[in-house]
């Protein structure tokens, strides 16, 4: 099979965007193209563009985003497809870019993830995200993603003994990492005592979906990220010979029941486990080879449980690893060095691409103060729905 690697990365500042959705996507795309040295117009070599977004059609009233981006960036007649797979839209777009190159459909693919969620009210945004739930059995009840995260957290607390403080530890760790990331939505250190002390917790960290509190979940963000993918056998010919080639060693996705109540073991995230195992197999590595990981912490409980399902820690011990500082910068298994969804932000369709941008920086040795020394192999987990569609990616440096 053809080898596929990343030779360009781009990332907007996450948060409240001053520019519209398409402009954000183009800004990230141009940064990735400039990073790789890709040209527009007659000198363009990109022959496929994917845009991952969950809500451009529903929230921003923009459909066919990929076609619009190709035209705006003067990349015609590149093939263009918009990819919607809930909050896993970004990694799904990367997977399709990988597949398009390995199949021979194209040699060079631009993959963008973007979302402009803050154009609508919080109520509308919560409702829009909830549309990915089961329409008859969940959405109609007013159930939302935080609702399921709350119920899932309670089950995990009862089964594994993790506490609200453990969630706060993960939150504080990711906020600290985000302070080192200029593209992060929230760059503010969080003192553990301020969000856990019972005397003022109701004011500093109120309940949102009991037992989850405000600091146990991500903010609503705008943002975009982009990657330039190229076939190894065309890297030189297309003009990217001088670029570091970060290989997509494994990429896989898996699904689980749409109706969450139907899951055989309610505390399992089966699609995380299956997609990670498949990505490891494809890459010829195991969890013991992972030097740094970006895990989908839309809720802090997910970072803990995904770290276990991906095999980074034994089942039921992820919270203990967090307590011991093993997942912090300087620990033996750093997770979410970017700040994670918690503090870097979570523009849904952008997240899967953004996670890979961070890992490319780590594998290039360009992550600055948050660099994981000697990182060679990295894992990203992008989580869609409440775990009913998950994409895992393994990246390797040369």
């Amino acid at each position, binding site marked *: 099979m053809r080898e596929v690697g990343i030779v360009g990365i781009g990332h907007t500042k996450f948060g409240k965007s001053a520019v519209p959705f398409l402009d954000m996507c183009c800004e990230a795309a141009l940064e990735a193209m400039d990073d790789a040295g890709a040209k527009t117009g007659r000198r363009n070599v990109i022959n496929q563009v994917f845009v991952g977004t969950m809500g451009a059609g529903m929230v921003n009233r923009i459909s066919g985003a990929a076609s619009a981006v190709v035209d705006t960036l003067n990349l015609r007649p590149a093939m263009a497809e918009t990819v919607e797979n809930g909050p896993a839209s970004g990694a799904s777009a990367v997977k399709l870019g990988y597949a398009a190159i390995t199949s021979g459909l194209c040699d060079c693919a631009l993959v963008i993830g973007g979302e402009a969620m803050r154009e609508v*009210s*919080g*109520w*509308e945004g*919560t*409702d829009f995200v*909830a549309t990915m739930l*089961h329409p*008859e*059995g*969940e959405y*109609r*009840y*007013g*159930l*939302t993603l*935080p*609702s399921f995260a*709350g*119920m*899932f957290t*309670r*089950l995990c607390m*009862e089964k594994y003994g993790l506490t609200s403080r453990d969630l706060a530890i993960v939150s504080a760790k990711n906020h600290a990492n985000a302070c080192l990331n200029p593209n992060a939505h929230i760059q503010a250190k969080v003192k553990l005592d301020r969000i856990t002390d019972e005397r003022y917790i109701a004011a500093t960290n*109120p*309940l*949102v*979906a*009991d*037992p*989850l509190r405000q600091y146990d979940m991500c903010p609503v963000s705008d943002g975009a990220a982009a990657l330039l993918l190229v076939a190894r056998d065309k890297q030189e010919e297309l003009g990217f010979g001088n670029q570091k080639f970060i290989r997509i060693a494994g990429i896989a996705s898996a699904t689980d029941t749409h*109706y*969450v*109540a*139907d899951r055989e073991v*309610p505390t399992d995230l089966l699609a995380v486990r299956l997609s990670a195992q498949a990505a490891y197999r494809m890459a010829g590595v195991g969890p013991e080879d992972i030097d740094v990981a970006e895990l989908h912490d839309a809720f802090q409980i997910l970072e803990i449980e995904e770290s276990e399902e991906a095999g980074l820690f034994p089942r039921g011990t992820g919270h203990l690893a967090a307590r011991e500082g093993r997942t912090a910068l300087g620990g033996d298994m750093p997770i979410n060095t970017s700040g994670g969804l918690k503090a870097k932000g979570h523009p849904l369709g952008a997240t899967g691409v953004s996670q890979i941008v961070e890992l490319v920086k780590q594998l290039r040795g360009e992550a600055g103060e948050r660099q994981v020394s000697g990182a060679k192999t990295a894992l990203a987990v992008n989580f869609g729905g409440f775990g009913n569609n998950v994409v895992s990616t393994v990246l390797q440096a040369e």
Partner: protein
Amino acid sequence: MEQMYAYRCTKCGKLHHPRYIVCQNPDCDGREFVKEPLEGKCKLLTWTRVYNLPEGYMVPWLNFGIVEFENGVRASGQIGFDEGIESGMELVSTVGIVKEKVIKYKETVVEPQYGFIFQKP
């Protein structure tokens, strides 16, 4: 009075809720189901109280839970009381309006939606 149902595969007998098009038994390919009332006693498996509700709810919070009925079928729904909610407690299912309004192409229209509201026995 609205009624909630489980859906029994006519080929293998597996019960489902909500409805499916194809039987979820991995060893069955049934596509026909008969409806059976889904009601009565159930056990609360987990629950939450949510304060940031989606558009259309003019209440400060709602309680939600996942229950298991005596026939083994699990379902999610609203919990109709506030005090003394605990995982593992016995409940009884009722049916009521779980949403007053729905959004149709950016327009909110009154169209009551019925579903489970779990209560103390």
